[in-house]
């Protein structure tokens, strides 16, 4: 039951595809065999012609099989009918089946300020556009450029730097990238291609080496570097003896030499991981000996002993693994290698993951975030889209049932209309009645614009980027200091557009609302909440959690700082 949708889809798709194969090749076969018949008739006629030219009077060739053209037609049409039936069945069972029908447009709850058509904004505005249109146009133009930049950065971070030049020629000409960085990403591209396409780690390893030389032992890289070394060791060990170019140097010996040279640095941290890997040397050696002594019985015996040993080793390693939570990531990797030891080259995912991990370290080294921001956001979209879809579905039902005036703050159109300055100035003033034609679009959301539903928290671990504090009293989210007070003052004086000033006013307000710690119980709340609790500082109040009594003067402002 659990995978019915998918199973059903699989059955339908497969029989659809099989039908296509069957019926269409039948048509082709039928046509071909009819052509065959025609050709034999042609042969007969040729013969007849020859005989006639010699003066004979052979029996005229029967043209009866021409009738088979009707048969050919009938068969073809039957085949077509058969296939058509399958096409219709698939359409009905899958494409028109409400269980499968999720309209993605129905999950676009908060449209971006971007056009869903190819637009070249450089062309200048349409004449007669209103002021709002122009502002929106500017915002969209800027957003389109930003999206393009995000895509460029994404491509660089997935190792596709070759395309960047095309992209920048193609689209917006005023996007410029730091040349140094571009070179570095080109190198990354080569390293990643090496890992993923050729399973060649040498470029990555030499990058590590270079880093060591320039910056001294980099403890930041230890974890990933260790992974690369053990993978390289395993690859060496697995290399086929004939493919070795080092004058027939035995692969086990080569791997041994490699380990001798590169592992000692890691002994302190990774002895439990290294030891099972070293014992792999034994297997390899035995394997080779076996092939030169084709004694079947001894060989089988040896192999069974070895696999026995291997199992024991793995299980003891797995036991150790649980005791080393701090090195879990690396241990997992070793476990993965042990599991796929002899078929490591086929495990493309391992190389893919390692390359992603390398990219993340490489970016860190460039002082950039460790993953593509665009991917991180889209990933979050993949994970959270069901909620948005569901929310929209419910909205649609609500708006059908209720009149629009009743539940205004639930209406999507209204939400989209929030964000104009008037709304900011007086948050209590609910936005105007929803209207699809509403010219009021949202450029900058005020801090009061919260999503009306909560997302599942179980995936938060993927996206834990900031310390988040929700005031236990007002349920308001802490707004840390993110804009400098001076800047705001300057902007105010410069009389920047109203929207931005209001945004900054709000910021300024939020800056006076830091968290405070209560002196006697060390519980935390937002300052504003405590101000209210203490009746503007005039009364003794009780802590919202433990009811300990405090004065307003007994709280201290505090700042969360993540390390």
């Amino acid at each position, binding site marked *: 039951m659990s995978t019915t949708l998918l199973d059903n889809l699989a059955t339908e*798709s497969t029989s659809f595809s099989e039908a296509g194969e069957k019926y269409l090749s039948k048509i082709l076969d039928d*046509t071909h065999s009819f052509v065959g018949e025609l050709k034999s008739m042609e042969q007969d006629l040729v013969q007849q012609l020859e005989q006639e030219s010699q003066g004979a009077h052979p029996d005229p060739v029967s043209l009866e099989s021409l009738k088979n053209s009707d048969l050919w037609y009938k068969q073809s049409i039957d085949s077509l009918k058969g296939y058509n039936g399958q096409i219709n069945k698939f359409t009905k069972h899958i494409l028109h089946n409400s269980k499968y029908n999720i309209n*993605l447009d129905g999950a676009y709850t908060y449209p971006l300020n971007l056009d869903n058509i190819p637009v070249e904004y450089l062309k200048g505005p349409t004449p007669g556009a209103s002021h709002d249109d122009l502002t929106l146009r500017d915002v969209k133009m800027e957003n389109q450029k*930003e999206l393009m930049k995000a895509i460029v*950065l994404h491509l660089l971070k997935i190792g596709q730097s070759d395309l960047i030049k095309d992209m920048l020629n*193609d689209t917006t000409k005023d996007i410029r990238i730091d040349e140094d960085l571009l070179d570095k990403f080109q190198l990354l591209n080569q390293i990643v291609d090496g890992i993923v396409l050729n399973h060649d780690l040498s470029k990555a390893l030499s990058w590590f080496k270079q880093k060591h030389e320039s910056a001294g032992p980099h403890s930041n890289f230890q974890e990933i570097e260790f992974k690369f070394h053990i993978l390289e060791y395993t690859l060496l060990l697995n290399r086929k003896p004939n493919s070795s170019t080092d004058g027939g140097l035995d692969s086990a010996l080569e791997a041994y030499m490699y380990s001798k040279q590169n592992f000692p640095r890691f002994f302190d941290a990774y002895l439990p991981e290294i030891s099972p890997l070293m014992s792999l040397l034994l297997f390899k050696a035995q394997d080779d000996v076996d092939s030169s002594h084709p004694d079947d019985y001894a060989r089988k015996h040896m192999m069974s002993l070895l696999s026995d040993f291997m199992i024991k080793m793995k299980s003891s390693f797995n036991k150790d693994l649980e005791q080393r939570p701090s090195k879990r990531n690396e241990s997992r990797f070793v476990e993965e290698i042990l599991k796929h030891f002899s078929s490591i080259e086929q495990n493309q995912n391992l190389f893919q993951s390692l390359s992603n991990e390398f990219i993340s370290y490489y970016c860190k080294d460039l002082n950039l975030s460790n993953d593509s921001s665009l991917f991180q956001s889209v990933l*979050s979209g993949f994970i959270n889209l069901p909620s948005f879809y569901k929310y929209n579905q419910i909205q649609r039902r609500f708006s059908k049932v209720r009149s629009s005036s009743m539940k205004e703050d639930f209406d999507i159109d209204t939400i989209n209309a929030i964000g104009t300055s008037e709304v900011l100035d007086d948050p209590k003033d609910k936005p105007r009645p929803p209207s699809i034609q509403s010219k009021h679009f949202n450029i900058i959301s005020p801090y009061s614009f919260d999503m009306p539903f909560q997302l599942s928290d179980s995936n938060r671990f993927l996206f834990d980027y900031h310390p988040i504090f929700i005031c236990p009293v007002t349920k308001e989210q*802490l707004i840390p200091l993110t804009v400098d007070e001076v800047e705001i003052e300057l902007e105010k004086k410069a009389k920047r557009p109203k929207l931005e000033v209001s945004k900054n006013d709000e910021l300024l307000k939020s800056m006076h609302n830091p968290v405070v710690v209560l002196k006697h119980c*060390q519980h935390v709340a937002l300052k504003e909440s405590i101000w209210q609790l203490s009746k503007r500082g005039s009364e003794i109040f009780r802590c919202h959690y433990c009811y300990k009594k405090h004065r307003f003067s007994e709280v201290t402002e505090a700042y969360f700082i993540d390390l």
Partner: protein
Amino acid sequence: MSEPTLNFHVQAGSTQFKVPTELIRKNFKTIQKLIEKQKRQAANDIANIKKNPSLPTAIKLEMIRKIIRSFEALEKKLKASINKDQEYRSRLLARLENLQELTKFTVTRNHDQDITIDMEDNEHAIADDLEDEDPKSVKTKARKSMSGDEDKALDLHNPTLINWYRDQANLLIIDYLIKSNVSSEQSVGLKLLQSLSVSNPKYMKLIDYDLYETLNKVFLSIVEHHDLSLVIAWFEENRTALKKANSNIEFEINYCKFLSFIEEGRTDEAIKFSQVHLSPSGNINNYQENEHDSYLNNLKKLKEIGGLLVYLAINEHSSPSQPVGSFSTSMVKHSARFHDYEKLLSDDRWIFLSECFMENFTKLYGISRNFPLFIYLSAGLSSLKTKSCYCNNDNTIFVNHKQPHEEVGSLKDRKYRGPNHYYKRLNRINNCPVCSPELFKLSRNLPYAQLITSIFNNPYKLPNGNIYPIDKLTTPSSLKNSGSGSSIIEDPLTKEVFALSECVRVYPA
């Protein structure tokens, strides 16, 4: 509220089956036509032979050979069409396989099963949930309504699943780049697709790049080049399907063509053209019952056409050589209606037709009207947007964003406690995607996600008000060996040194 489940991905992914099926159907029609045509022709030829049994053998032979040739030509065409069919079917299977990959990452969870997709059954439970702030009651209610549903959640801890998502994200980007392409050269989207399929050939089967390229080309031909030939060809190719869907695009195309005649000054042709192609649209009897809206729309436009001719006459007369026109002419020229006519002949009609085309195209193939990248991006950014986000100009590679080096003021300045300063000063990297300058700007109009308190472990407040995860605070190196008790720590931001006893554990939740 909801978690990503296998079923949701299957449902969201089923759209990808629509385009190949539609392409198969169209190709099927081609095959059918080939066969029908061949049948008619063969029947003709055969009848000719049979009519005259006494034909000389040589002529009979020639006639048979002609039939053979035509059947062989048919065979060739059939093979080409069947190859196409195979290609489209292989897309279906590749997409199926792509979804089946997900079954490797499913987990069965006994608690936390607040997963409901079937809206019919669970409407009330979910509706209640939305208004209900208490997460516990949400779960119990949802679970109650779960009873029949055994959907499977996905294990997001699995890096291979994350890699799967990486591929899907790249496909969304390719989709966007192809559809939004404005250059006349080969689109970057296709290049990216080719480049990515070197290491992963399945990419080619997972996206209908050929169709999207057509979409893009036709769209641009209308808006950019004011050329109707591509859209007319597309309409002819899909005439039956479009008629079936009550499409009004034929009228819009003809209307646009009429205006083009007018614009070019070929008024006579325009009038003749409208008599043949536009007038029938004014007759309600030419519409299906459910096409009433189209009828009203078209009738309105047709009515304007007459006025348009008057407008033309006035416009021609008021050339610069006659600066002062008659009073009535200038009256008309300043009337609102006159401007409407001006508008009729502006570029608006191309924009309108292009949008109409887009509408028809997406409907015909069942693809989403919005670029899927936008849909996922908007949901993703909204769910990641926190009130701690700021525009982190350090996390970019674009030149104009690099800010001049900032002067270091007093370390104790309050502003350094904001995340926009402290990451940099602590030499830390902020990995938040919404803080990256590009996406920060894109997400300006989005709402903030509703979150719950989530503070690092062991938060300790230093006497200066800074709260740190105590485990990560170090003793300053100068003091490391000097003190015996050495219960001293350094604020990494202000470089102040405090006795550990002065620091207190705080309890944010």
